[in-house]
């Protein structure tokens, strides 16, 4: 931008204010700003308008006139450059959503145009008590949404650590989460339901911590995800043939994945379903998910009970089955990440699912299940095979009928480790538009591969995030997940956004209560 560009940052404290600005100023293509020292006419101006939702709209214009507004004092009149329709659409949809949410006609605002720069409070002042209750309810909803997100993630994502995290990293991540989500932090609120939901979330977090706090645990979890620990061998990627028709672009193209997590190899969870049948793959997952019981070193030898079911207490390695890794070998293709394109898992799945194993597809197809809706599972879960087992207890933990707050093991999503993935690189460099284009190109090339379409959505979502438009970004990530439920990046971004939302709710609630947060 040419020197002399004046950069102004404005903030809308409320939707009402935005509506006012929109109707009064933007629709006319001009805007009045108070200024004690008006810049010369013709100065180029850039306005960063931050919305209540923390998204930012960028407007450009030039100083057209110095004038004195009867209500607001002296200042300048800006002539705005044509506002991109996208921005207009954004503002309108945001206002609409807001008005629906409030169930009061947002248009009411138009009449109250007077406020000008007046920043109304963030919530209508209906009275302290109602505010608190409403805020508590919002926080509960936010927490429930977060719990849902967390359940979909693998332990590394739950804690927010990389796959090569060290003990200290894991502890630090856990410490941060503890400070935010430990039930003690919610003890100050009245609602018992709130504290209960907080406890649920924390249970998910601490189970992830238990799994990952030691090197051995991390190795197991990685194995469960189908990744080799430490050396993320790029070569392994190479083969990934899955897309039968589409051989190669794998290495480079395929891995745009950072955002496009290759199909979640296995839905161990799905493996979970036919658990009875396939004891091994379950071992690790159930044992791992059984954080609660297998947590301490205190070894309790299984009691010689008339009751066979010993299963859970022991660490995975114990049974004959090596757990996931056991499943892997069946895969013709070298395992980890890419291969995880679901190929490996195919074998186990087939019997249970009877899903046409289309190599590339498989994972994604399997994936929907991951979303964890009871229905499909229930249908596929076999009645406990009496015959099957002398093997006492199928560590059946994932209940088929799922309304209990279960330690559901999240779908192992393979991701990351994207070295040399061009789309990822573009994303990292912040060249979102190019990334989107590249992803679209890939999508066109492999029309049957959902992951690319999902990647497009993810890239767009990331771009919106960069524009601080959370509403849009969230929508994009959600649609990415709909297209390809195994997309780890989208799940993670969504979880992060929900986390942020929860924090905001919590901050608001705490401020209402007059405490510091």
């Amino acid at each position, binding site marked *: 931008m040419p020197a002399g560009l004046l950069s102004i940052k404005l903030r809308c404290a409320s939707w009402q204010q935005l509506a006012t600005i929109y109707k009064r100023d933007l629709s006319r293509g001009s805007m009045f700003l108070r200024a004690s020292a008006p810049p010369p006419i013709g100065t180029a101006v850039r306005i960063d308008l931050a919305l209540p939702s923390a998204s930012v709209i960028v407007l450009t214009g030039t100083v057209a006139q110095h004038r004195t507004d009867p209500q607001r004092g002296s200042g300048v009149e800006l002539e705005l450059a044509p506002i991109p329709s996208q921005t207009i659409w954004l503002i309108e949809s945001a206002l609409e959503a807001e008005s629906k949410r409030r169930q009061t006609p947002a248009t009411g605002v138009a009449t109250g145009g007077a406020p000008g720069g007046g920043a109304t409070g963030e919530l209508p002042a209906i009275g302290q008590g109602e505010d608190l209750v409403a805020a508590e309810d919002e926080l509960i909803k936010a927490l429930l949404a977060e719990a849902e997100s967390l359940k979909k993630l693998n332990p590394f994502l739950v804690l927010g650590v990389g796959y090569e995290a060290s003990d200290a990293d894991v502890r630090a991540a856990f410490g941060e989460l503890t400070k935010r989500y430990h039930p003690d932090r919610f003890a100050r609120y009245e609602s018992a339901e709130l504290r209960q939901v907080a406890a649920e979330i924390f249970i998910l977090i601490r189970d992830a911590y238990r799994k990952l706090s030691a090197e051995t645990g991390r190795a197991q979890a990685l194995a469960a995800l189908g990744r080799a620990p430490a050396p993320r061998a790029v070569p392994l990627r190479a083969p990934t043939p899955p897309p039968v028709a589409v051989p190669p672009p794998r290495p480079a193209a395929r891995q745009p994945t950072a955002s496009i997590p290759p199909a979640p190899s296995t839905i161990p969870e799905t493996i979970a379903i036919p658990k009875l049948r396939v004891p091994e793959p379950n071992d690790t997952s159930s044992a791992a998910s059984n954080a609660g019981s297998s947590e301490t070193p205190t070894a309790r030898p299984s009691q010689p*009970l008339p009751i066979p079911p010993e299963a859970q207490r022991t660490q995975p390695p114990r049974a004959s089955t090596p757990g996931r890794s056991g499943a892997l070998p069946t895969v013709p293709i070298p395992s980890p990440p890419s291969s995880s394109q679901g190929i490996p898992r195919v074998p186990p799945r087939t019997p249970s699912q009877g899903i046409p194993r289309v190599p590339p597809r498989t994972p994604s197809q399997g994936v929907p299940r991951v979303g964890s809706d009871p229905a499909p599972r229930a249908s596929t879960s076999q009645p*406990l095979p009496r015959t099957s087992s002398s093997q006492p207890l199928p560590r*059946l933990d994932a209940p088929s009928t799922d309304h209990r707050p279960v330690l559901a093991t999240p779908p192992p999503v393979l991701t990351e480790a994207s070295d040399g993935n061009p789309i990822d690189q573009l994303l990292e460099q912040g060249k979102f538009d190019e990334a989107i284009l590249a992803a679209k190109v890939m999508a066109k090339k492999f029309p049957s591969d959902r992951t690319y379409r999902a990647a497009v959505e993810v890239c767009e979502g990331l771009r919106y995030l960069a524009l601080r438009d959370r509403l849009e970004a969230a929508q994009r990530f959600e649609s990415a997940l709909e297209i390809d439920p195994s997309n780890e990046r989208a799940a993670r971004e969504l979880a992060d956004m929900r986390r942020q939302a929860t924090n905001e709710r919590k901050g608001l609630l705490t401020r209402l209560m007059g405490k510091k947060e």
Partner: protein
Amino acid sequence: MSRIIGIDLGTSNSCVAVLDGKGQPTTLAGLDNERTTPSWVSWSSSGQVTVGTRAKRQAVTSAAATVYGVKRLIGRKVNADDVSWFARLAPFRIVAAPNGDAWVRIHGQPISPQEVASHILRRVRQVAEEALDEPVTRCVITVPAYFDDAQRQATRVAGQIAGLDVVRILNEPTAAALAYGAHRVTGGRRLVAVFDLGGGTFDISIMSVENGIFEVLATGGDSALGGDDWDRRLIERIVDEVFDSHRVDLTGIPMAMSRLREACENAKKALSADRETVIQLPFLANDPHGAPINFERVVTRDQIDALTKDLLDRLEAPCRRALEDAGLTAGDLEEVLLVGGMSRWPAVQAMVESIFGRKPSKGANPDEVVALGAAAYAGILAGDSNDAALLDVTPHDIGIRVGDTGFAVVLPRNSMLPVRARRLFATTHDDQKFVSIELYQGDSSDVTENRKLGQVVLEDLPPGPAGSTRVELVITMDVESIMSVTARELRTGLETSVTIRPSGGLSQREIVEIINRRRQETSVVSPLPMEGGMVRVTTREHAVTRPSDEKK
């Protein structure tokens, strides 16, 4: 909302603290300027209750109606070993309630330890209200980490009777670590052990402190081992000596026992610093001929050590087990913190040094540090401070009975709270129609030695050969040690749940009765003499003035 106070309800002494204006925990002293209140309660024949130093002084003359060490009785059964010992030497009667709980009998009236403790809590609350000059209704009460759920719940009930809203029950070693560490929230992870040897209980907790996160890795202890046991050895020795030389059994003379107890406790305290001291008790009792026994004896530190060697040895096993549970060796620890009056004893400190290989730290006042920690935690719960978080664990295994005496663990000890654990079980008989699941808490593999928490029955099981019907048991425990248990039959999905909050030993009705009875009586709680011999007596509900009656 009123401020939340932190209460250390100790076996021998209780203390109360709160966060001051700058967010620092500070102990509170009432108008009598005492920072700690002896955990003593005395009843006059007319029913007036005295608490604290006054009660302790009254103990000499009305020994049978003065209760001390009630923490050893709260939540416990009368047939426990240490309770029996306690009963033998205590000047007041210890009796069994209908459910087997240990109660006391004063002036012919059975009184629950919850009620006794509630008097102490009320007194402590009054101290706080005097110091803060504002009403106090909410508190955090500390208990030994090794207390089981029955003991914890009984402590809560005591608070309830005292009219307090017990926001949380906090473990003493964790509270102490918080008080110690609150000032040093520097980066870097520190592994510490908290060695808490109080009047009646022993706790050892291994913790990791990093960036304000206090994570308990393992905890162990002995909830029937404390300074009182050291006293008891000396008391027993002297009782034997007096019997040998004068043929008088002092245990039948409450006043003599009371004097002797106090003398032995003072001697022990003196011997922490000196090598020898003298116990002098003139006119302790009369021998069979009617001649007075003037007891005088030199007591040395070595003698006490010789008498208590086995007690010292009992300190070691819980420490080793806790280290093992935490997966650490003594060398991994950076510091050992001492808490509790008895930790002042030289031989105890030597034992700590030998177990952990380093000299223990004695920075803070071991008598007040727990209350300070409780106050700091109260601040965290109230939202007044955000710089620390406590991650505590459950101290005992929780499981169910299998077979006659088998104990199958579902939720292992040292699990970080909140936690969810599950385990599968199968039927033992063909076509079994229902399964009765009894929950126990304890560390013995023999279920009869563990404490029963509750029961849940799952009925209408589908028929099938033994072992084919599988029931999944899920136990969820939250930070307040409230447990919810769900049993689910896998084939049909049939399930049943129960929330278990172990009874505090008194039914709700009994609690309400006690509170009502209290309302009607006015109790003299350490009355302050005013001018003209008038005394202002305040209970929660009334303010009454009555002539002082000092001589009680």
